[in-house]
């Protein structure tokens, strides 16, 4: 993790996002801070509904107009405050400086537009170049993700899932973005295709020195691709450090629980160790630590007030007031 967080390329500080429904408020993101440097990959790990996608959408400012609100926080890219930019300037940034790979390639593409044109569209929007030049660049992008250029004129339904995901990646990378938000880019894919796509993403990141936020729930993917890891639970980051720190010294009871729940590939165990209970309802979060109803270490202190961030022995961040005890028993 970079020591100097003040000069980070992309910074998210104390972000709070809420969704409003008829009769309640959903607390999707509750005071999240992240930072990301060029050429680095930060893994954002958590379960369904933890707020991962909401964070990415907040950075791109593509949350729904009605019903969602960023109520607090700053997002800066290269010292430019993204949340204060007028919409027309934000449009210059989307797809150009920051782009996003969406989770589901089946729905992210336009089914009635040729795939090549979908790539060329992004290039045309952000560059003042001729039609032919756009098409040439779009073909190069196709080739880069391993699709022959004679398929430029085909439609999404003519491609397999893995190829569609590669087209989505080609669109995201078409303007050499400085920041790539990859939202579960391989979740919908089979493992052998996932391996191909992860390699591709990694190569492209190295080639273009892109800063990448990789959203996933798969610890294996994190282990293979990321430099830093942030573990998110119920809209709060509960643990944040380098990949080595998190994988070698997981400290938050939730992180430990997550690792424990994955069936081992090397040891034989009769029973798995699930985290008992369920994630909390984000419209009715428990007082104090959001994990306290499921936590074996929870005490009165955990149920009273919000838990501050503590430093662990190896120097990473952990939002738990019992880290010493967890370490002793862990």
């Amino acid at each position, binding site marked *: 993790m970079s020591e100097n967080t003040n000069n980070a390329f992309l910074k998210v500080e104390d972000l709070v996002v809420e969704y409003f429904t008829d009769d309640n408020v959903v607390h999707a993101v509750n005071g999240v801070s992240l930072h990301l440097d060029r050429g680095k990959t930060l893994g954002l790990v958590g*379960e*369904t509904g933890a707020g991962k996608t909401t964070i990415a959408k907040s950075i791109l400012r593509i949350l729904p107009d009605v019903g969602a609100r960023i109520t607090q926080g700053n997002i800066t890219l290269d010292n430019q405050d993204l949340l204060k930019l007028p919409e027309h300037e934000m449009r210059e940034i989307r797809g150009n400086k920051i782009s996003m790979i969406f989770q589901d390639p089946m729905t992210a593409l336009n089914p009635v537009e040729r795939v090549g044109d979908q790539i060329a569209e992004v290039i045309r929007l952000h560059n003042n170049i001729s039609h032919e030049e756009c098409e040439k660049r779009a073909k190069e992008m196709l080739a880069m993700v391993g699709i022959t250029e004679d398929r430029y004129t085909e439609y999404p339904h003519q491609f*397999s*899932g*893995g*190829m569609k995901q590669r087209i989505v990646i080609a669109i995201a990378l078409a303007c050499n973005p400085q920041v790539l938000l990859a939202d579960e880019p391989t979740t919908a894919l*089979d*493992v*052998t*295709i*996932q*391996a*191909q796509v*992860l*390699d591709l993403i990694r190569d492209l990141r190295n080639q273009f020195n892109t800063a990448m936020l990789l959203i996933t*729930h*798969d*610890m*294996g*993917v994190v*282990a*293979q691709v990321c430099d830093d890891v942030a573990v998110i639970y119920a809209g709060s980051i509960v643990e944040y450090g380098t*990949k*080595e720190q998190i*994988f*070698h010294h997981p400290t938050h009871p939730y992180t430990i*629980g*997550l*690792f424990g*729940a*994955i*069936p*081992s*590939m*090397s040891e*034989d*165990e009769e*029973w*798995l*160790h*699930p*985290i*008992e209970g*369920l*994630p909390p309802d984000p419209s009715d979060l428990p007082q104090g630590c959001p994990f306290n109803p499921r936590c074996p270490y929870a005490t009165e202190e955990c149920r009273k007030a919000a838990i501050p961030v503590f430093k662990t022995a190896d120097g990473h961040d952990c939002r738990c007031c019992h880290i010493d005890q967890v370490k002793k028993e862990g």
Partner: protein
Amino acid sequence: MANQEPVIRIEGLKKYFSTARGLLHAVDDVTFSIEKGKTLGVVGESGCGKSTLGRTIIHLLEKTDGKIWLEGQDISDVKGRELRKAREQMQIIFQDPYSSIDPRKTIEATVREPLVVSRKFKKNEIDDKAQELMELVGIDERLRRSYPHELDGGRRQRVGIARALALNPKFVVCDEPVSALDVSIQAQVLNLLKRLQMDRGLTYMFVTHDMSVVRHISDDICVMYLGQVVEKCPSKELFKNPLHPYTKALLSAIPSTDIDHPFQREILQGELTSPINPKPGCRFAARCKYATEDCQQPQVQEEVSPGHFVRCCRVGEIN
């Protein structure tokens, strides 16, 4: 117990679908048996025919060819009342707990349905059995009158399990039962399935694409590729000593959580080829780095070592 009939035995099972472009060989010549109380894991990538195989065995789909025995009794061509009787013994737990449960029925009504339909029980017996089942799978008393949309994925899957077990089946096809669940919940459901198997002597066919899940739950594993079983052996053996080139590639593609030993990945080129009118040879040959002329010939399943079957003519040379 050794000479007891296996709960399920299939031989040369085939399921073809006719499509506009020709015959789709979804399941092509699959043979195996599962002993009582054991779990056979079936793994493979999407479109390899693993779900179709499960559905064909329990007669949700009509087979094209082949034989199926349930506890030694030939049920390949049963119809009418006989089929109904056989179906009581064979149940399925579906992948998606969101679409496999009737949204307009309460949880209790869903669990009661098979008991009512079987016409074997009196009303008060049905009440008792339904309560017992819901207790068994851990659905709280207060949720029994709720509707599926009020439940999370893990609880819904418990409802699917209770419904499958209602008539005390001998054989259960678990079709990706935990794929839609988060890991912490997935572990709860896997433990439940295992406990039920121990308590009731259930026999499972566990269909999944998740290698760590299949390793945990299975006694034996079949690896499928485009409708065919390419390798079958005891679970431990498969992970220690995979022999088929596809199995090797599949295992090496799993992202490991061990950050100190970045694995030697063998990245497969290309993707699944079409299962429509496949050529007679090895179906994996197009992606296989060991492929030669011989691979264009039909491949037979060979027992390489006791209990370890491989469908590859070059298995001896490449290992």
